[in-house]
């Protein structure tokens, strides 16, 4: 049995379902990233796990014990909030010490554990300051320290890097996994940033419309998204989605993309004759200025993005396609419109149902 098990969770407010039939199992010591956009129900989910809200249906089990109706203070859950939620009238030390104080830990041990945690988080020099005297990064570390110091069974991190500046965010992204591993915590980490999700998680649970539409490794979510919604959430520029109808020929499957017939390496018979969506990521679209067997396109715009060049291509029938390639190639420095040819690496092609968006 998994360490933290959420089954069939439901929560509605005024007849409006926020969390519907949500299930997930988290192993001990696992780092699960919950990825969802604002309004997807993240906050409500965390509050249900933390015990601030009561679920309408479903169960949350920790180490085999149901947490239904258990008060937050008995749940053995630590949480770091997006807005830090520090106690403004207590010093950083007392903020971090709070979970220990509630358990009547002897004073010398409180001192030791708070200072150890503070040192680990590199905030020991501001430990006697009130929250209002701390920088954003220090506040964030204090909040993190408070959630960690009691070594809770489960750690909920609600988008903790959201409000810190870029430098600290970058540092923390590198530092957090190591830190959390040293505390051997089981972590549920909520974020709106797909790159953060990809960088941190053992697994990513994709929250869409109040339920997990996919729970898988970062690679699996990226390479094999369960549906078009998930496919669109990961990747920048977003994945290209084109309507196609593969046909069977003697040489295997072919399909028409913008007036050009291309052959498919896949031999999935189920696709034959079916109206569906072809999903292909920008990095799998090669662009060449020399005439090739590829699809003739016009390069409408080129813009650099994270060490890559992103191109907006327009096919002969008007379909727009994103392509990207490493910087420094022949395309670097190109200005204006250009005639080019696009090669779709169809080994990485994904097919989705046109109606419900599910991957085929």
């Amino acid at each position, binding site marked *: 049995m998994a360490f933290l098990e959420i089954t069939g969770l439901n929560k509605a407010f005024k007849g409006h379902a926020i969390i519907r039939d949500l299930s997930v199992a988290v192993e001990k010591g696992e780092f699960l990233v919950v990825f969802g956009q604002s309004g997807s129900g993240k906050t409500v989910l965390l*509050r249900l796990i*933390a*015990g*601030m809200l009561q679920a309408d249906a479903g169960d949350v089990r920790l180490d085999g014990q149901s947490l239904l109706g258990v*008060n*937050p*203070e008995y*749940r053995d*859950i*630590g*949480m770091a*909030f997006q*807005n830090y*939620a*520090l*106690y*403004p*009238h207590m010093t950083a030390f007392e903020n971090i010490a*709070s*979970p220990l*104080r*509630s*358990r009547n830990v002897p004073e010398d041990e409180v001192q030791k554990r708070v200072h150890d945690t503070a040192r680990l988080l590199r905030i020991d020099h501001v430990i006697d300051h009130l929250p209002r005297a701390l920088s954003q990064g220090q506040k964030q570390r204090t909040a993190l320290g*408070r*959630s960690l110091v*009691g070594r*809770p069974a489960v750690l909920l991190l609600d988008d903790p890097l959201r409000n810190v500046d870029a430098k600290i965010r970058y540092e923390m992204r590198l530092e957090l996994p190591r830190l959390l591993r040293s505390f051997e915590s089981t972590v549920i980490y909520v974020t709106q940033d797909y790159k953060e999700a990809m960088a941190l998680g053992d697994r990513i649970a994709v929250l869409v419309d109040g339920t997990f539409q996919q729970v898988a490794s970062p690679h699996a979510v990226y390479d094999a998204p369960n549906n078009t919604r998930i496919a669109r959430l990961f990747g920048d520029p977003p994945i290209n989605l084109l309507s196609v109808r593969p046909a069977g020929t003697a040489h295997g499957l072919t399909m028409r993309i913008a007036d050009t017939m291309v052959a498919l390496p896949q031999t999935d018979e189920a696709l034959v004759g079916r109206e569906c969506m072809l999903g292909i990521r920008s990095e799998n679209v090669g662009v060449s200025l020399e005439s090739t067997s590829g699809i003739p396109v016009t390069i409408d715009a080129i813009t650099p993005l994270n060490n890559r060049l992103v191109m907006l291509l327009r096919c002969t029938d008007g379909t727009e396609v994103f392509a990207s390639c490493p910087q420094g190639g022949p395309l670097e420095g190109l200005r204006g419109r250009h005639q080019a040819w696009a090669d779709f690496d169809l080994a990485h092609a994904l097919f989705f149902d046109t109606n419900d968006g599910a991957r085929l």
Partner: protein
Amino acid sequence: MQGKSVLRAVSLVLIGLFFLFPLFWVFLMSFMTNADILRNPPSVIFSPTLHNYGALISGNLGTVVGTQKIDYMLNLFNSFVLSSGSVILSLILGVPAAYAFARFKFRLGEDMAFTLLSFRFAPPLLVLLPLLIYFQQMGLYDTYFGLIWVYQLITLPLVLWIVRGYFEDVSEDIELAYRLDGHSWLQTFLRISIPLARPGIAAAALLSFIFAWNNFIFALILGSSSVQPVTVGALAFITASGIEYGQIAAALVLSIVPTLILALFTQRYLVEGLSLGAIKG
């Protein structure tokens, strides 16, 4: 432009004069002998005397017909007891309710808060007449407790509505964080919610004190001289002391000094308190 600023300056002076002169003059009178007061034309030059205050504090008032014992100090003491008692009771009753009202949106809370508020605006005599009859039957007439209970009519809505606003501003996340640290609901309420709403609670308490202190009609109807506050006492005092005007002025000064001092402390919260939190000062 020149004429405009002169007009502005004159208006400011007139306003200052209208609102401050009465206080200033009664304050001066309280240090005058009757002869100084009756002088025509009046003069601000006189040799000040503390005799009026001395007479009030000792309770032996000189009148034309001889010395009379009037315990005006008891009235002052009663005002303190009634006002502090009302504030304490209001805080005990109102702070938890304000929290419930701020945190949990529930029908009953809404109804209650509005009932209390609507009686803040109802004619006080409407409730006082039946209460007088009940209090006499229940033995609450002429008691501190009876009056303090009725004073809740003024102080409780004030506490409920001001403190509620401050509780609404306390982040729910902070409370949840403290719960998750392993503290019970009560510990969280006492150590997080209340300290964070403290400015509001202090403001509500000070304002309630002032409003209770300044109340007149409740004690006029529900108490006799033994529990009556200065507002009622001062009126009786005027009748009793006859033409000892200096003593009357001193009595009035004594009755307003406590609230004036408190007001200077609370001026920051005043706007909010006066408008029951409708406008943050």
